[in-house]
């Protein structure tokens, strides 16, 4: 049979191209393995569909993503779109195309809770859209739950319950900070400072001076650009910022460990979802990526791989390329992929996070290596102060 055309959209150019390239490799690897018969078939026998994947660039801009999607619909006749693979703001634009082109869409890494809210606001309109990652609120819950645990354990002193943020000035940074603020404020914490800096900033001295003034008990930092994260962690140690620090997302980037040096020792962060050094399945995936592309695998590879698998499985299950059928099959997904169990919340079409679903573990850098420290059940090492 003919290959079924599907499409992917990722930032292949511009500052996010690094992640975009990883996402593309993940998507391509999934399709390649599936077409080679290594597919995770829902039905044991019968003719299995094969796929032809086209990946286009969004240059991190929504309107470029929309153009790319339109092109793939009319030129390539794609039956399913994986997009956006990285950006929430591009996804916000792309999801509008699901009703317009009658096209099933599943996004990969985007986490913004606003996407889920949008689906909830008009379920009929966004019936064909699915969000392949949990909501950013899941991070907040992890941070909140972990801190509670750590206080109980005496790892963190709650002191005057003063919370501070240093985040990048993007929807990613803000939506994380917002959830965390809500959860902690319910426990009687107050936000002493919230500093949002342009993405890619590397000079945090003015912010740190300000933070030293308010002396927070816990500082949470959120970045997607690894240089910001490295600079912040280094400068925090230079400035001997009081209180504890918890990082979100950026330490997952492979460059982080290489660059942060001794300043990173003891850093607590969430969430370590892809860890070849401790998880054998991740190690195997890493080797496959190495073999195919000559570079190590990252979390983005794994996530894109899984979401692509989910899409292909759904088409297989649907048994046709009817958009409604595909969409329903996506909604029915309950699938254990590399990084955890994927199941969608039918109310907001969003993958469930935490608990038994996609895990959000907390890690700590100990002796220059990442160790899982929470939840205790999966911990590879005990947390140190």
């Amino acid at each position, binding site marked *: 049979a003919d290959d079924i055309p599907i499409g992917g959209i990722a930032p292949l*150019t511009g*500052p*996010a*191209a*690094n992640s975009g*390239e990883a996402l593309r490799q993940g998507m391509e690897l999934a399709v390649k393995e599936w077409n080679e018969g290594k597919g995770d078939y829902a039905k044991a026998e019968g003719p299995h569909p094969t796929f032809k994947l086209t990946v286009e660039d969004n240059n991190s801009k929504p309107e470029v993503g929309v153009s790319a999607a339109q092109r793939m619909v009319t030129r390539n006749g794609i039956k399913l779109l994986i997009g956006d693979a990285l950006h929430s703001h591009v996804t916000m634009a792309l999801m509008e195309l699901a009703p317009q082109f009658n096209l099933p869409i599943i996004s990969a890494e985007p986490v913004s809770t606003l996407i889920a809210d949008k689906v909830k606001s008009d379920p009929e309109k966004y019936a064909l859209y699915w969000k392949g990652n949990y909501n950013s609120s899941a991070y907040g819950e992890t941070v909140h739950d972990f801190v509670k645990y750590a206080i109980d354990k005496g790892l963190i002193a709650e002191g005057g319950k003063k919370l501070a943020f240093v985040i990048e*000035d993007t929807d990613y940074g803000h939506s994380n900070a917002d959830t965390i603020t809500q959860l902690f404020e319910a426990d009687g914490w107050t936000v002493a400072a*919230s*500093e*949002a*800096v*342009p993405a*890619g*900033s*590397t*000079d945090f*001295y*003015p*912010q740190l*001076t*300000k933070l*030293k*003034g308010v002396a927070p008990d816990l500082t949470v930092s959120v970045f997607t*650009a*690894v*240089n910001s994260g*490295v*600079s912040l962690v280094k400068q925090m140690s*230079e*400035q*001997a910022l009081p209180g504890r620090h918890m990082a979100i997302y950026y330490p997952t980037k492979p*460059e982080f460990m*290489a*660059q*942060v*040096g001794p300043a990173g020792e003891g850093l607590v962060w969430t969430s370590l979802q892809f860890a070849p050094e401790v998880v054998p399945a991740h190690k195997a995936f890493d080797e496959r990526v190495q073999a195919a592309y000559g570079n190590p695998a990252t979390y983005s590879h794994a996530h894109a791989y899984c979401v692509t698998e989910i899409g292909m499985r759904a088409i297989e299950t649907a048994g046709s390329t009817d958009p409604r059928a595909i969409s329903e099959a996506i909604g029915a997904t309950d699938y254990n992929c590399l990084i955890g169990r994927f199941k969608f919340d039918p109310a907001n079409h969003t993958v469930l996070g935490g608990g038994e679903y996609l895990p959000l573990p907390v890690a700590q850098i100990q002796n220059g290596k990442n160790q899982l420290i929470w939840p205790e059940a999966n911990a590879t090492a005990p947390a140190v102060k």
Partner: protein
Amino acid sequence: MTGAMLIETLLNGLITGSIYALVGSGIALIYGTTRVLNFAHGEAMMIAAYLVLIGSTALGLPPVVAALGAIVLTMAAAALMQRVIIAPIMGRDDWAFRIIAVTIGLSIFLQSAAQLIWGESFQGMPYFFEGVLVIGPVRMPWQRIAILVVAGLALGLSAWLLYRTRLGQMIRATAQDAEAAQAFGIPAGRVHTMVFAMSAGLAAVGAIMLAPLMSVNPWMGVPYLLKAFAVVILGGLGSFGGAVLAGLLLGVVESFAVAFTASEWRDVISFGLLIAVIWVRPYGLFRGREG
């Protein structure tokens, strides 16, 4: 705000400001002498940073050698670019604007070229100077203090060249009327090339000092470019000393802006300041030496 915090805020501002001054003065040098705005100045920084990174990590050269090598190579690259791209435009009709346009194109070109060659990942570099200076509650790493010192030296040297030497006179004459300058034996073409190389050299010094702080990446020059332009304008028409003072001032203003408002309004405040100053004093805070 406690006294120590005040001092620290001021110091932070001065250090950020010295970076602005260093980047800005390179632009002021070209602008003041040739009336050319170089939008590819940030890319000279980027190239220098990659060169020093390659020199010190891949080739394992001692930092000073790697830094000097990077400066020389960046200057050579700038000279080459000036010869091939800028020189043919000089003196053509509406050239000042054409150079803005061509350097904007060049900047995009170089960014993507760097991305293709070196990838888009952020590459770290170790500090040249380890350790933190602690005086009472004030803490400042030596690397940052070094920025202040090196910026001062580089700027002093350039100012001396520009205003106290024959070279400077040649440069300024060429800028104002290249044809007339030639008639008096000044090799206008070569002078332009030299100015470009010098300015790239200043950018290189800035980039090398900054590389350990901000990670090397294809876009590292971008955030500093507009600030540097603002500094040049605030400082007054191509005035060298003005650019330095304005750089420091802008750094301090930003530092206090962060201290008293939220970080995301910092740039609004600094660019707002620029427009406000231009409104009141169209030719900058410190009027250019050339009036």
